């Protein structure tokens, strides 16, 4: 009686035949649906391998000309056609690192405040403000960074850093130099602001998935707020947290326009984070249009390939971290 195929209105045929025909049509639909979803999944793989293939073919000339030196030389000279990716790699890694060092603690702080401590009246306005921050196009961050933020830093934070750490042995090199306003630190700070909403909204969402029972039980046995957050909420949600941080890091690594505006675009590695530098994506955006000569273009594509590999390594490290966490918990 609950046979779905018999509830259909077309029962002019004999019951058995009708049932068989309905079943056939169900099977057909099932098959079509399965193939459609599978095709979508395969398409992702196809696009990904297409991108890798295109990058490898495009960068082949540069990679075969320079070999491993491409990764270890700082020189980027379009006149003599000697290209090395070390300065952009360094800039990409350092700016992203600065961004994450700032955005992760602040983002987690906001998320914890919003889910655990915030009076309900404030919760919505702050949440909406963070989502709006995520919606601002990166070119706006770039222009704001160049016209407002960089002059501000040039007048305030940078001279302060230089004079404070001027006599401290290692830090005096890290914060050396004339305060240009723009540079690696400024790019890192802008990236931190851009990454913040990703870290915040993902962590807030996962914090909200913690069952109330768990938290209430913890409070019930006398835990403090800090203990509940530290021992219950964060361990329960760490997979999601790592995901959110990685999403942010991915954005920081690949961000182009905002960084191009404020990093100073110099193919040099300097010990100081106040000095101008460059990143992989900024170099590509700057130079691709007027790159004359195959080796130049190919070297820029090779930079793209390296960025792809860096992103891949970051994701792999994230997965490894998660695996280790799970194993630790199992033991």
């Amino acid at each position, binding site marked *: 009686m609950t046979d779905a195929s018999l509830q259909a209105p077309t029962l002019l045929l004999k019951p058995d035949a009708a049932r068989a025909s309905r079943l056939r049509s169900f099977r057909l639909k099932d098959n079509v649906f399965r193939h459609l979803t599978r095709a979508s999944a395969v398409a992702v793989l196809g696009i990904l391998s297409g991108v890798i293939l295109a990058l490898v073919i495009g960068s082949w000339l540069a990679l075969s000309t320079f070999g491993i030196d491409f990764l270890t030389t700082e020189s980027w000279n379009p006149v003599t056609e000697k290209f090395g990716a070390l300065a952009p790699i360094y800039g990409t890694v350092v700016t992203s690192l600065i961004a994450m060092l700032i955005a992760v603690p602040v983002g987690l702080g906001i998320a914890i405040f919003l889910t655990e401590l915030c009076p309900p009246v404030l919760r919505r306005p702050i949440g909406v403000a963070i989502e709006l921050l995520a919606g601002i196009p990166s070119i706006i961050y770039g222009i704001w960074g160049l016209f407002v933020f960089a002059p501000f830093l040039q007048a305030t934070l940078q001279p302060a850093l230089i004079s404070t750490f001027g006599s401290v042995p290692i830090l005096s090199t890290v914060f050396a130099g004339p305060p240009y306003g723009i540079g690696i630190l400024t790019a890192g700070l802008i990236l931190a602001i851009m990454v913040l909403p990703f870290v915040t909204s993902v962590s807030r969402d996962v914090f909200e998935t913690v069952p109330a029972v768990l938290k209430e039980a913890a409070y019930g046995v006398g835990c403090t707020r800090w203990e509940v957050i530290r021992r219950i909420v964060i361990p329960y949600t760490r997979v999601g947290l790592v995901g959110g941080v990685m999403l942010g890091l991915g954005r920081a690594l690949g961000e182009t326009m905002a960084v191009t505006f404020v990093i100073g675009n110099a193919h040099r590695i300097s010990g100081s984070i106040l000095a101008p530098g460059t990143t992989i994506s900024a170099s590509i955006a*700057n130079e691709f249009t007027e790159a004359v000569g195959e080796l130049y273009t190919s070297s820029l594509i090779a930079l793209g390939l390296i960025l792809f590999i860096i992103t891949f390594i970051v994701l792999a490290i994230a997965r490894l971290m998660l695996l280790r966490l799970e194993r630790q918990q199992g033991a």
Partner: protein
Amino acid sequence: MKLNRIFGAVAATMLMAAPALALDISGAGATFPYPVYAKWAEAYKKETGVGLNYQSIGSGGGIKQIQAKTVTFGATDAPLKGDQLEKAGLVQFPMVMGGIVPVVNVEGVGPGDLTLDGPTLAKIFMGEIKSWDDPAIKKLNPEAKLPSSAIAIVHRSDGSGTTFNFTNYLSKVSPDWKEKVGSATAVQWPTGLGGKGNEGVANYVAQTKGAIGYVEYAYAKQNKLAHAKMINKDGKAVEPVIKSFQAAAANADWSAEPGFGIILTDEPGADSWPITAATFILIHKQPKDPAAATEALKFFAWAYKGGAEMAEALDYIPMPEKVVSEVQSVWAKEIKGADGQALYSATN
């Protein structure tokens, strides 16, 4: 069935639309002349109904596209060499000019207060002259009060024709620069900050105390930056004004290179501005689509003749008449249709 009919209809519209579209001229290349090409295109469309679709994708892209024959003409800031033109079967001619101006942000120094010469400019950009009160600068400016502040170099971060012409000039006046840095649309800068585009450089210079950079004349003028006077090949200090850019073009020997491919830096003449730059058009000798090429040549002829005022309003410099007539005789001689007939004659 239904689909077939739709495809048929689409194909039919495309076929019908094709001749109408062919009237539009397509070009791609240099970003530097884009504003004036766009202005000319607008006026030309109003006058003749023929539109121009110009993609300012950069000189490198323009050269690639004309070689691939996907556009009617290409545009480049750095001229191609004779053998490159020969190999690709291209004709090259200058369309319009601009000036490149050193701009500074030094306390107490207004527009034109500072005078520099080529070797000093090269030393500054090499990072060898580090402060504004350096003896080399003082010697050129005995009157000026120069502070001891450090010099901050600002250059272009993106590849550009501006950089090509600027570094070409420095290479001509400084053997040291030629050997260590050289000249190209992008170079390995010994020192300094990179700003994106003319506006990026202008902005960095305006913001940074002690900065020096180089921008197109229009940007120096519009951003009210303090420009420097330059001492030219004849040893005269000149102001960057349209007259001095034109003097450089008039004193140049345009037949020295095939395809008018000379670079207008360090030209002789008492009034010549030493860092003047022309931007070039590339077109096939035997175009794939002769009708479109004819339209393009008509447009260029119109722009030479009637576009001078529009160009000057945007701070570009029109080509001198002498050069224009030489260019047009090259068109008549070298650009031919499939039947061997010239596509352009001075009478049409």
